[in-house]
């Protein structure tokens, strides 16, 4: 083989390697531009969900969690968690290893590790903060999923298709918020006569083992014009406000305009749809 041909092969080799990463990279770069021009939330990128995109003027559901109100009302967070978990047939295995949770309490340093510092006031140190899936506008879990079993809906909700999920758990590695749980064992089973799902709610499907699950923003309730269960459980306290972030008249938009809120790890560019009043 002559040397030009050999050189060509070497270059071809290198470009082939570069080419493999290129489509995804290009995709992300292009989205960056759209977002830079469009500002937060509007004109959201269509490509990440592999076709499950959002029209520029579409809905984008989001939530504000007023942690002060929760701390003023002990037991309210637990009530919200119970409302979610019991309706959605979230199993309780009684151990951390197999744990499944959609909505739960964390300490400030864990919920907001990048906002935690060493002279926190007493409340920040002792209080608990509710966390759940952020329904990111730019969700890494959707980007990582090889089957589109997790995808972004037109209304901004990041959904799961339990029947398509192969259980590779790539989405769990990708989610920077620990929002996802895996069915390590059969959630419909039982141990020592105690079923993992205390009372099965026939209105919502139970899952099979080997698939991932997480909060779905109660999308099935939104379709019926109702609020998410956790929001409903808070009653009229205003501890959780839910609505369309793209509608300037929605309650959630008004809260966001008038109050100082923070997001979890905003520097990662995921654009979470859950905001916190601390």
């Amino acid at each position, binding site marked *: 083989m002559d040397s030009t041909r*050999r050189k060509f*092969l070497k270059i071809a*080799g*290198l470009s*082939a*390697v570069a080419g*493999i*990463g290129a*489509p*995804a990279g290009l995709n992300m770069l292009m989205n960056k531009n759209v977002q830079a021009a469009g500002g937060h939330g509007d004109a959201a990128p269509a*490509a*990440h969900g*592999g076709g499950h995109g959002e029209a520029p003027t579409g809905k984008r559901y989001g939530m504000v969690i007023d942690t002060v109100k929760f701390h003023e009302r002990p037991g309210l967070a637990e009530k919200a968690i119970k409302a979610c978990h019991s309706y959605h047939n979230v199993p309780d295995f009684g151990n*951390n*290893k*197999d*744990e*499944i949770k959609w909505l739960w309490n964390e*300490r400030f*340093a*864990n*919920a907001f*590790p990048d906002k935690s510092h060493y002279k926190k006031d007493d409340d920040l140190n002792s209080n608990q903060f509710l966390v759940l899936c952020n329904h990111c506008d730019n969700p*890494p879990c*959707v*980007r*990582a*999923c*090889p*089957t*589109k*079993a997790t995808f972004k809906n037109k209304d901004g909700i990041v959904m799961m298709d339990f029947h*398509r*999920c*192969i*259980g*590779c*758990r*790539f989405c*769990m*590695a*990708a*989610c*920077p*918020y*620990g929002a996802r*749980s*895996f*069915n*390590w*064992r*059969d959630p419909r089973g039982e141990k020592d006569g105690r079923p993992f799902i205390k009372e099965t709610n026939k209105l919502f499907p139970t899952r*099979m*083992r*080997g*698939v*991932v699950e997480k909060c779905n923003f109660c999308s099935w309730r939104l379709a019926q014009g109702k609020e998410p269960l956790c929001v409903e459980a808070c009653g009229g306290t205003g501890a959780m406000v839910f609505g369309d972030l793209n509608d300037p008249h929605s309650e959630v938009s008004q809260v966001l305009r008038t109050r100082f809120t923070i997001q979890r*790890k905003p520097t*990662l560019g*995921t654009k979470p749809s859950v905001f916190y009043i601390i």
Partner: protein
Amino acid sequence: MLEKALKGNGTYWAWMFLLLGIMGVGGICYIVQYNYGLGATGMSRDVTWGIYISQFTFLVGVAAGGLMLVLPYYLHHYKDFGRITILGEFMAIAAVIMCLLFIMADLGQPLRALNVVFHPTPNSMLFYDMIVLNGYLFLNVICGWAVLHAEYKGVKYSNWVKPLIYLSIPWAISIHTVTAYLYCGLPGRHFWLTAVLAPRFLASAFAAGPALLLIIALVMKQTTKFDVGRVAQNKLVTIIGYAAIVNFFLLGCEVFVGYYSNIPGHMHTLDYLYFGLADHHTGEVFNNLVPFMRASVVMGLAGIALLFYSRKVQSDAQLAVACVLIFTSFWIDKGLGLVLGGFVPTPLEHITEYYPTAVELGITAGIWATGGFILTILYKVAISVKLENEKTA
């Protein structure tokens, strides 16, 4: 050609039955896991990938490492590699099959694996990984078999094989690059989020793959009449040695960036792997990987030194020890630390440690045995053909 694998002495058959036995145990363990769910492993909500995915990652490297034997021969006409090129290709076949088996073992719903094909998702790196791994397997099966078959018939391989061989060269790099991209593109996993991950993967692969091959070659030198030759051996020492040095250089870069920048996220996992990491709230220290990771560094550096020394004194025994040290070092580094370390601390800065279960280890051993089984058959055939050829020549 395959009939060559059916002839062998007592040791050969004892070895094959041993592997079959381990495969059987692995199979039984898999049935247990299949019936119970992945909860039969030590993985948890916090450490969602365990020894399966870490073996997978390491073995992609072993497969890609075969490149270091193919490239000099085909691109640079380095004739002294003539006897081992085929060994590199066959090692890649066995390694990729093991990779695919480890992926299958890790799936929560293995029967749905083909969803990756039915619902192709070009934004997922796993989609590309599937393409490049299967492609690489295909290329090596075709090229390796065609070349060996031609040799068996005593003719030169046909021309259509050549482009495929050339294609397999960049392809080898792609498999490990894409595998690194599985990890290094995830936000919020600081340990993996580094641009040197792919280069480091390649460096460790180019050391570990040839090291394993050299170990096997030295064993065969003792047990069969097959000798790869002193020149090829010495050349491999250079390749392994420099690749291993580059790997440690890149590791050093990671350590520098982490500790000099003093950014907690960049230090946490390194702390966990090499020194132990304390929980914020309780102060409890977690360090179950520390002895392994430290041993990895010591073995790696000692291995490099011994490698070059063994060449100086022309000692096969020392060379074998050096290769075992380097291979083990990189197996720990990538086959344990890299994947498991990435999960500590969790994105919420909790610390959960992972310990594999017996079932999990059984399946892992079973898959390694399967790889060994395939490799033995392939090498048996290759060596028989080569030796016969040389006899008639």
